[in-house]
């Protein structure tokens, strides 16, 4: 059984041979026609999403990212053997190469917009009527529209691609990710800072740089 971490270029994968993956397993590289996968071999593996294992996955992906373009794989990607992995690389070669081109020289930055706690309805005696709750949800909806217009839109203009997560759970108002050229990261941060300074009711968190998880998926043709 093998566990796969990321797709990259062959030269990038070859530079990782001394690093370790899940459970301390040696990292290996498999390459087929100009595309490579980073993986490790396991006698048995049940990659439950504990913080420790997800961080081990993340460290491998970031090590690949430090050396070249990377397409992170979803945590928990297992295949029967190298032949299966090689077959995936062969079958999806063109779209994977296309996706690598898209993320090369870019990083993912994250935006998390959080509602200011409302002292009238949050906390206090801890008693909230149904009406208070509904008002809070209506307020969240308006805040999300405001955040999309005043924060997300101008930031998206600085990015090559952006995605807004479907389900932001309170107190998150808006969660988004941006694919940003490495050279534009300082501009992006400065812009986010200026935009955030104009917001009174919303807190703004900019995170990253991350491997381009949110932009690795490729449209299947």
């Amino acid at each position, binding site marked *: 059984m093998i566990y796969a971490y990321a797709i990259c270029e062959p030269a990038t994968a070859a530079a990782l041979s001394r690093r370790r993956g899940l459970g301390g397993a040696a990292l290996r590289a498999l390459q087929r026609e100009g595309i490579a996968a980073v993986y490790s071999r396991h006698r048995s593996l049940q990659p439950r*999403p504990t*913080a420790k294992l997800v961080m081990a996955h993340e460290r491998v992906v970031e090590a690949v990212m430090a050396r070249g373009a990377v397409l992170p794989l979803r*945590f928990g990607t297992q295949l029967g053997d190298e032949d299966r992995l090689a077959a995936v690389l062969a079958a999806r070669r063109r779209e994977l190469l296309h996706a690598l081109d898209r993320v090369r020289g870019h990083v993912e930055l994250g935006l998390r917009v959080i509602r200011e706690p409302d002292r009238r309805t949050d906390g206090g005696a801890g008693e909230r009527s149904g009406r208070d709750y509904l008002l809070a949800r209506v307020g969240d909806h308006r805040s999300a529209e405001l955040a999309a217009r005043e924060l997300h839109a101008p930031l998206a203009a600085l990015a090559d691609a952006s995605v807004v*997560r479907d389900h932001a759970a309170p107190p998150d108002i808006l969660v988004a990710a941006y694919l940003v050229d490495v050279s534009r990261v300082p501009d992006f941060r400065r812009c*986010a800072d200026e935009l955030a*300074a104009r*917001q009174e009711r919303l807190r703004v968190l900019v*995170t990253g740089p991350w491997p381009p998880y949110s932009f690795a998926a490729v449209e299947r043709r």
Partner: protein
Amino acid sequence: MGAVQLRRRQAGGDMSDRGARLTTQRDIDLVEILDRALGAGIVITGDVTLSLADVDLVYLSLRLVVGSVPTIRGEPADEVHTLAAGAVDPR
């Protein structure tokens, strides 16, 4: 107020004297990483072996972790920021 800018790695050493903030920042990193590693990234096989229940469990415990560290110190102001984990999109 300005954005809370989390610069990962680069901040490294100069944060070691701020234990509380370091802990909190690590929690935020974990939220962001779980969001991405479990909810995004390419799926190349039908054998991604996570059940919805697994993911929910992680998020539940994570919410508890983050919830137990209710304040984040802004940089450089002393504003208090609260944060909770977002919901994963378990596609």
